[in-house]
């Protein structure tokens, strides 16, 4: 009886821990590249959001981004709408290095003694230009998320990727093709005549 009771307790603890893990992980803030995968042709731009989800009391942040420098170049990075939702901010776009393939030390902070911002939204918007065909990972690193007490906020990081494709050659539109074929048919008809 006692053995059964102990086994039951152990099983209960095990099950509780197993079922609580996903709950904890789901509530953790996530810093991600959105869309997670995107495509762009050579010479065109693609815009990626750096998003935060499920954050509480976010007061300031900083991150680095990296990409394949032969495939992409960074054109700009600007402040997103999430942090300004909490009041005046001071945004530092960071340093774009298209040789090394990084955007380093992008940061933003609220100003003054107020609380941070809760919820989900966009922290920054990155614009990349396709240089050569291939797929580049878009990775986040050196991430700091701070609450209004300037304590760190833990978060999961989700990288993204961008596939750069060759420029597509123009394909004649159906109407044009039909007209062309019709013209060829008329010519053949006249020749037979």
């Amino acid at each position, binding site marked *: 009886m006692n053995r059964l009771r102990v086994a039951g307790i152990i099983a209960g603890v095990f099950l509780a821990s197993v079922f609580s893990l996903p709950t904890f992980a789901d509530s953790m803030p996530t810093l991600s590249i959105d869309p997670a995968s995107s495509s762009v042709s050579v010479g065109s731009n693609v815009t990626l959001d750096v998003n935060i989800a499920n954050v509480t009391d976010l007061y*300031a942040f900083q991150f680095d981004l990296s990409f394949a420098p032969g495939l992409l170049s960074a054109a700009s990075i600007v402040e997103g709408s999430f942090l300004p939702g909490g009041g005046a901010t001071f945004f*530092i776009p960071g340093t774009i290095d298209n040789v090394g393939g990084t955007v380093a*030390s992008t*940061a933003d*902070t609220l100003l003054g003694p107020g609380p941070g911002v809760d919820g989900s939204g966009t922290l920054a918007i990155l614009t990349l230009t396709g240089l050569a065909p291939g797929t580049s990972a878009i990775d986040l690193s050196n991430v700091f998320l701070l609450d209004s007490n300037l304590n760190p906020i833990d978060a999961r990081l989700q990288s993204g990727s961008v596939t750069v494709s060759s420029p597509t050659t123009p394909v004649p539109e159906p109407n044009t093709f039909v007209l062309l074929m019709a013209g060829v048919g008329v010519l053949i008809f006249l020749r037979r005549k």
Partner: protein
Amino acid sequence: MTCGQQLAITSPSNGAVYSAGQIVTVTVSVTSGQVLAVQVGAQDIGFSAYQTTSPYSFSLTVPTETIGLKNLFAVGLVANEAVIVSPVINIDVEPGAAPTAISFQQSLVTFGYVGQQRRIGVTATFADGSTIDVSQSSQIQFSSDTPTVVSVDPTGLMSANGSGTANITVSYGNLTATMKAIGPTAVKGDLNGDGVVNSDDLFLLESMLGSTPTGPNDSRDINGDGKIDILDVQALLTLCGASCPTLSSTTTGLSASTNQVQLAKPVTLSATVTGSGSNTPTGSVSFVVDGQLEDIGALNALNQTSIVVTSLPVGTHTIVGIYTGDSANSPSTSQSVSTQIVAIPGDVNSDGVVDCADLAIVKGSFGKKTGQPGFDPRADVNKDGVVNVLDLSAVARQLPPGTTCH
């Protein structure tokens, strides 16, 4: 912008001689750029009105009683209310007629202590009986026959160098005059040169506490330590003996309103002087911070004084109060007290406020590490060797509500 415009006085020439009542005609040229208006001025003579058109020519009348080399210069008004000034020349104002006699304005000068300096005026007398002070004339020359007792420089400034008598001579052309200068007595502590060391010397020394010795032989520096301070007073009291009044000893107490305060916040320094005798201490207390005189406070009826200091920089400061004594109470120095001035959190430029300028300093070094070009140690608020969002937010958090920075 004021660069690009230049003025020059083209007339009179440097060193031109004038006399009182004469008119100095001054012409000015603009040697570079454009000016809106020009005026001229001369030391002890005055300024002209502004002229707005070239050629610029002015007339200045030399006032009476004016003698010696005088600076002459032109001022140009340029855009944005800025001014430019020409190179300065000298004009020499001398008597219009040759004097018939010259004389010192004193026949005897007595020096109290080695290092004491004095200047005695020289008067010229003319044939019509009129006189004028020619002490600043470029035509007069001074000399001493015994410079080891009293020396004199070309401007007539005499310096006491030792005991004895010296003859000081002034010459103007062929005219000369002589004055006797008596050097300080060899009696140590006899600062007024009357041959004895008494309370007069004591009071004289007390009035000079804190002065800088004129040299290694300054008689006021009785103990020869390079300072004129309370220790010299004590040495003089020993020399004075019964000739000096018996001064009551005093004790100076000093306190600071706080031993730690934020930058730019007031610190009140208070001193109380307690005398051992029946005469209430009077006079003042000098507040000395880190060896430098900060301020002087006069004692009130309760023998207290205080000053308020707001300008001390970040750091720990050592403060003493020095009571300089009076005719019945001896000087005394307080025990030192320390006050620490701490930086305001987020005030990285230490100007006493947290504002966008502080944020800008952090931004200027953002992402930099110690040793890298562009790293400003002030921006590394948390002193972890790198300027990042931890530093940025530490400043941002301290900004007043409603602040916006770009």
